[in-house]
Every structure is written in C-alpha cells, then in structure tokens.
C-alpha cells in the first residue's frame, strides 16, 4: 500500500516538476506583459511551443559535431534529474536519499558544461561569447550557492535538500532567525543569475551581443531547441520550488498521506506562482546590468551568505 502510494507521489511529483515550470514561465511572461500594458500570451504558450518544436525538423550546423547533438538531451536530463531531487508539493521526492545539495549543484554544473561545449561546437562567435559569459557567471555564483545551501543545511542539520525542507516545515516560522533572510537574499540572487534573468541577463532581448543564455541556443532548432528551452524551464521551476519550499514551507503534503495531497498541490502552485509573478515584477522594474557589474551582485549574494555563516558560527542555530 505504502509502495503504491510512493509510486503515486512520485508520479505526481514527476508530472508537476516536468510541466509546472512551463506554466511558471507563462506566468512570468504574462505578468511582464501586463505591466507593459499588453495582454500577453496564454499561460500554456510555452507548452504549445514545445510541442510544435518537437514536431519540426532540425537544422544542424555543418560546423558542429556529435557534441552539439548530444547536448540538448544531456542538458535536459541533468536538469530533470535535479528536478527529481527538489521537493515540490511534498517533501518526499523520488531521489530523496541522493538529493545532496552538492550533487544538485554539480548536476546543474554538468548540464551547463554540456551546453557551453555545444555552444563552442557551433564555431560561431555569438555562442562562444555566451559560453564564456555563462561560465563566468556560474563560477562566481557557485560559491554563493554552496554557502547559502550550506547554511540552510546547517540550520537543518542535514545536507540533503528534502530533509532540509522537512526540518524547516516541522519548525515552521517559529524559529525565524536573521539567518533565513540572509540566505534567502543570497539564494534569490544566485537563482536569478543562474536562470539568466534580468538583471543578469535578458531572455527577451533582441541584441545577440548582450545575451548570455539565449545566444548559446542560437543554432538550435526543432527538437533540440525544444529540449534546451524545456531544460531552462525546468531549471527555473526547480529554483522557484527550492526557494518556495525552503523559506515558505507551508502546507506541504506528508508522504503516504493521500489526504494532504490536494492542499500540498495547491499550496505549491500558489507559492511558486507568486514567486514567478514577483520575478515578473522584478524583471519589469529593473534594467539589465552591465556585464561586469554582475560581479557586484554576486558578491552581494556571497556576502549575505558569509554573514549568515558568521551569524551561525557566533550565535548558533
């Protein structure tokens, strides 16, 4: 019985984690459109796009090798794998025992590694530029990410993300310490940077020279492009899920208790939607940063994380 329940939970999680991000992307776009006094696209536009792209043929640049073909699959799979480790509506996840935060960060790194390789494989200058910039941003954001998750894990007393979420949800808001906002700031900045959103990067810009993430995908088309877009969506989704569940763990479904599922689902969707909307607001109200100012923001993130560590060291949990 529990086994069947586990399977069921896993199935819901899988579905949620793979497709909900597409909706979240839609929400962000919608909010931005509305703030710009436009009506905006339907919420499920991203899904429609993906389905359409999957049906299309693919054009491969003649400069590229097998790395270029392999990269979308690898990128998508690595992101999906991470998505299986980050809790959504419940803190129980299929790969919970393996969901060490270091592994999570390194899996995301693997996905980026493949994407950058593919970018260089196209032999175009725009993609090379994107790869360089993405590597730069990632290298600087990784320490902040490790530090902030380290603090979270330390507060929770575990290094696995679902476990952290569980511990936090147990304690709820009763123990809100100054550590939490510090980590939150750090993690949010890192998440924005890693997802290549404004102010670090603008996914909707039309000038290729200023792009980071999108320029790497310029040569992709058809299913390849679909996988890359989907992968990026997965990344956004899991970042929002992580933030939502770590800092606002309200109404999480308990494992193997069917009755808590609807509330869990609703709460998760609501929380991530709010976060997505906030992201949309942020993107609409901020301008893109100059590339070399990115380091300042990442330094801010790192500093916040270090402050959290210091606070933890001197005062304790």
């Amino acid at each position, binding site marked *: 019985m529990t086994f069947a329940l586990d399977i069921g939970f896993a199935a819901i999680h899988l579905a949620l984690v793979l497709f909900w991000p597409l909706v979240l992307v839609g929400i962000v776009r919608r909010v931005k459109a509305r703030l710009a006094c436009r009506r905006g696209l339907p919420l499920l536009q991203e899904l429609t796009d993906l389905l359409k792209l999957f049906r299309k043929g693919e054009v491969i640049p003649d400069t590229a090798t097998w790395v270029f073909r392999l990269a979308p699959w690898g990128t998508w799979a690595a992101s999906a794998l991470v998505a299986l480790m980050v809790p959504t509506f419940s803190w129980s996840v299929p790969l919970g025992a393996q969901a060490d935060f270091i*592994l999570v960060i390194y899996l995301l790194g693997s996905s980026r590694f493949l994407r950058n390789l593919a970018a260089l494989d196209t*032999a175009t200058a725009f993609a090379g530029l994107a790869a360089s910039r993405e590597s730069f941003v990632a290298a600087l954001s990784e320490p902040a990410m490790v530090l902030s998750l380290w603090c979270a894990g330390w507060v929770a007393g575990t290094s696995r993300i679902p476990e952290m979420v569980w511990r936090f949800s147990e304690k709820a808001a009763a123990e809100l310490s100054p550590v939490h906002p510090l980590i939150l700031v750090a993690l949010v900045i890192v998440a924005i940077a890693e997802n290549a959103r404004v102010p670090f990067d603008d996914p909707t810009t039309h000038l290729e020279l200023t792009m980071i993430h999108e320029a790497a995908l310029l040569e992709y088309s058809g299913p390849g492009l679909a996988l890359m877009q989907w992968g990026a969506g997965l990344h956004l989704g899991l970042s929002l899920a992580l933030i939502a569940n770590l800092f606002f763990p309200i109404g999480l479904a308990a494992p193997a208790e069917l009755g808590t599922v609807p509330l869990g689902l609703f709460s998760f969707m609501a929380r991530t939607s709010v976060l997505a909307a906030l992201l949309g607001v942020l993107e609409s109200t901020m301008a893109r940063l100059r590339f070399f100012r990115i380091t300042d923001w990442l330094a801010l993130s*790192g500093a916040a994380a270090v402050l959290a560590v210091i606070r933890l060291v001197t005062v304790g949990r």
Partner: protein
Amino acid sequence: MLSLLFFLSILLTAASGAAALALQSRPALAHRVGCWGQLAGTLAGVVLAILCLASDAPGHLRFDGPVPGLGFTLRFDALAGFFLLLVFGLGALATTFGLPYGFIGHSSSLGTRDFCLGFFLASMAVVVLADDVFTFFAAWESMSVFAFLLLPGEHEKREVREAAYLFLIASQVGTAFILVAFLVLAHHAGSLEFDAFRRAAPLSLPWRSGIFALALIGFGTKAGMIPFHVWLPKAHPVAPSHVSALMSGVMIKTALYGLIRFAFEFLAPLDAFWGLVVLTLGAVSAVLGALFALLEHDLKRMLAYSSVENVGIILMGLGVAIFFAGSGKGDWAAYALLAALFHTLNHAVFKTLLFLAAGSVLAATREASLEHLGGLARRMPATAVCFLVGAWAISGLPPANGFASEWMTYQALWVLASGSAGTHLLGPIAAACLALVGGLAAACFVRAAGVGFLGLPRTEPARRAEEAPRGMIWPMAALAALCLFAGLAPGLPLAMLAGCLPRQLSAPSLLLAGPLGLPAARSVEPPLYPLAIVATLAALLLGLTFVRRRLGTASAATRVHGPWNCGYPIVAPRAQYSASGFSQPFAYFARKLLSRKKLLDVHARHHYSPYLPESLVLRVHSVSPFDTLVYQPVKRFVIRLSKRVSRLQTGSLRLYLAFLLGTVILLLLIQP
C-alpha cells in the same frame, strides 16, 4: 616474493633504460627495447603494488648501501603499495603511450630519454618504498635529477632551459627543507631509520611544529603548493607529454605521500592547528591554480596549473584529516584522509589521461597553444572523446571519479564545520572555495575542450591533424574507462584505500556503503550511489526518446546546413571565439591579482597611415603575482646580497693581508 618482485621491477625498468642508452646509435631499436623493458618492469611493479596493498603486516627489506653503515631499507606496506600502484600502473600506461609517441617526436635522443625515464620510474618507486632517510633522500634526489634530465628535449629554446633550471632549483630548495626535517627527527630518534622515528618518544610541540612546517614547505614545493609552485607550470609542460603526465600525475604525488607519512607516522600526536594551515594553503592553491589554469593558452601549461589546483584540493582533504587526527576524532580523520587519497588517485588518473591526450594532439599538430587548435574532434575522434572524458572528470562533474572525491572533500569540510568553535567558519569558507574551484575548473575545461577540439580548425596543422596511432589510443581509453569506473563504483577504490590508512585512524563504518556507494562523512546520512543517478538519468532519457518518437512526424528530417550565426556567414575560422576571449571576463575579474600586459602590434601596409593596418596582433600575457612578488624579489635579494658580499674580493692585496692579520689577532684574542 616481495623482494623478488621489487628487484624484478626496479631492475627491469632501470636496466631497459640503460640498454636503451647503450643502443643509442640505433634509436628505433633502443626505444623499442627501452619501452618493452619498462613495460615489463612496470607490470611486475603493479603486481608488487597489489601484493603490498593486500598484505596485512608491512614487509621489510634491507640491503647494504654504498657506504657501510648507510644501508637501504625498504618497507612494503599498504600506503606505499597505493603510491606504488600509481607509479607503476600509470608508468605502464605512459610507457605504452610512449612507444609510438617517441617515434613521432624527436627521434635523435630517444635512447637518452628512455634511459632517464627508466631511472625516473625506478627512483619514484624507491621513494615510496624507502624506510630510512638515506634511501628516501637518495631516491628523492635521483628522482629530481632524472626528471630534470627528461625536461630539456628542445633546449635550444630559452624558456625550456629556464624551466629546467627552475625545476632543479625548486626541487632542491624543497629537498633542503625536507632533509633538515628528516635529520632533526633522526637526531631525536638517534637513527636514520623510519622505524626508529615511529618508535621514538614524541618531541615537544614547538619542535614538532617546526619539523612539520619544514616538511610542509619542502613537500609543498615539490607538490606545487602555492606559494611554492612557481616552477611547476613552467617545468612540467616542457617535458615530452607522457613524461609530463608522469610528473603531474605521479611525481607530485610522492610529495603528498611524504607529507602523509610525516604527519601521521613520524610526528605522531598531531596538532589540530597544522591541519588548519594545510587546509588554508590547500584552498589558496586550489583557487589560484584554477584561475591561472583558466588564463593559460598553452594546453600543457594549463594542465600543469590545473595540477596546482588539484593538489590544493587534496591538501584540503589532508588538512581536515590532520585537524581531526589532532583533535582526537579518528573516524572523521580517516574519512578526510580517504577523501584526500581518493582525489590523489583520481587526479593521477585523469591528469595522466589529459596529458596523454595533449601529447596526442601535440604529436598530430605540433601546436600546443589553444589559439592554434580547434576542430580536432572530427580529425581525431578517439583522442577527443578521451579528452572530453578527462575534462568531465577533472571538472568534478558527476558521475565521473572527480566528483566522487570532491564530494567526499565537501563532506569532510561539512563535518569540519561541526568541529570545535574555531573551525566553524573555516569549513564553509573552504567549501565555498571548493565550489569556486569547481566553477573555474569547469570553465577552464569547457574552454580547453571547446576551443581545442570543437568548432573549426584555426590553423593549417589543426586542419591536417591525423588521429593518433592505436598504440596511443589504448592507454588513453583505459584511463578514460578508469575515470568512469572509479566514479560509478567508488566503493571499490575506497575499499583499497581504506587499507592504506595509518593505523591510528580506522573507521570500519566507512565501507558500509558497499562497492557502488559513496559513504557520507556522518554515518546517519545515507551514502550516495552514482550508479543510481546514472540509472535514473538513463530512464529519463529513455522516456524522453519515447515521447519524442511519439511527437515527431515522419516529414521532419534533420538537415545539415551552415550555421545561422544571426545571418553572418562564417568566413574564417579565426572569427570563432578564441581561448583568450573566453577567459577574458575572468582575467578582468582577477585583474588585481595578475599583472597583465597588453601589447597591440599594428602592422600597417603604408607608412603614412596607421589607420589602415594590414594586421593587428593583440598579445596579452599575464604574469603570476608570485613570480613578481615572491620569486623575483627573492632572486633579486639574493643576487644583490651576493654582489655586496663579493665586493670583499676587491683585488687589493693589502686588504687580503689585512684579513689574514685580522683573523690571527681575532683568533688569538678570542682564544677558543
């Protein structure tokens, strides 16, 4: 049995080298004899290493040395066995690679090179087996000498000569520190034998700390620890690639071996503070090593800097181990040491792999600079795949072996943070450094693999590159397989390494994870199973393929076409993103750390108009701050001091006579 195998392996490697030297007039034959002999010797050595690893009690072997009273003592224990395995195992692969490789490169001095290589391997083996100061020191010195002799293959180049010289000086400076450390211990123990060191009553803490500092500087110099690393990135790339592989993969590990022996066996009650020093130095080495690697254009020099980085990671693990051993937490110390040893093994494997691949590229194109490569994946697919696997592993990405050991290092740092109050902060800071290193290393190897192997060939040699002969592919393939194997089944190498731990550190609970698992530092946490992750990944991909099949229409074909590139056609391969362009943001970011010089050469066709240049060459070269801030000032100081002192010899006879009279009077007045 052990002694027989020992003599067999040493004699075979050394004697085949000597034979190669003797046959020098016929280079091809000499090279064959040398390589096959060395291969046989190293294989015997691998058996020896395995026997050492399997043995319960250490075996000893003593024989007379050159001077009566200075004997050679060897000890066959598991720790030595592990390093012996590195020496001989990687030695065997490098030799196999070297056989065809030698014929491609310069063939004039093949015999000499094989001679030096044979003795180099033999002396490394003796270094790790040595059980008294004399044996260790003699082997250590001859290791440096033969490494030095292996360096200057193309010594008509100035930087090669300088690198060879610098190598020798650095290793000698390091050796001097080590020697003092050893001999002070020997004075205390009253004997040169390591067994006497182990038995001797512990010295007082200041003495032990002093000795440890000496050993750390000495071995750190050899290992390429920052700030004593200046020689390494200059020297290692100069050698033939399979030798560079052995230098970076194995030789610098002997220094770590020495440090482990010192810390855990000779200076027995460890002090926790030393661990923190080692950890800090390790973190600095790792970060700066990775940064410098990223800014380097030369493929081999980049790999050498990456060795500095990885030595840093190993030292971080070692530092945590020393800290815990010093504060009496044996099991965590064991875990951290295991992480360090595991990373030692892994780095040896993938660094050798990468150097061999670089050698294969070098042999095919004679170009070492990334800016002149590109597109090799089409012409040299096997080499490219091997290099990619190595790059993947060295960037610490799952599920390759680099991730496994880096993860264990993170775990060690994680428990370090829960140590005593003073170390709370160091754990997360070091972890952040490690994360930065991970990001930098990934960028570095994306750049190396992407610029070097992918895209379009940038120069004519790269366009015409031919795949390496099969004899060179096999060793690389074997190493690549090892990278994946050790990553997927980390429990197996860990079980081997657990047998190498010093006696006072034992943690039986470590191996509960089984052959496929990667144990966590705290036994309450479940182990990590890389294979499970890979299986899930495969399942996800399978599912995705299924979906794609269902969605895809029959008419949707895949076409190959010139890249879109936003509408700009690619006119020249040089329009690709360059390696220096790739690392430019990092260089800008670290501009305070580096003194970078930009030189813009404008070649104008017409003298009257500099605005119509025929070609523009931007040359950027970065100077390591340790070169300008540490090494050069020291050098200048020594030279200035020497100049001042040498003014004593003024050429004035009267002054000399005054020295004489002064000495006599002084001696008479002091009356010793």
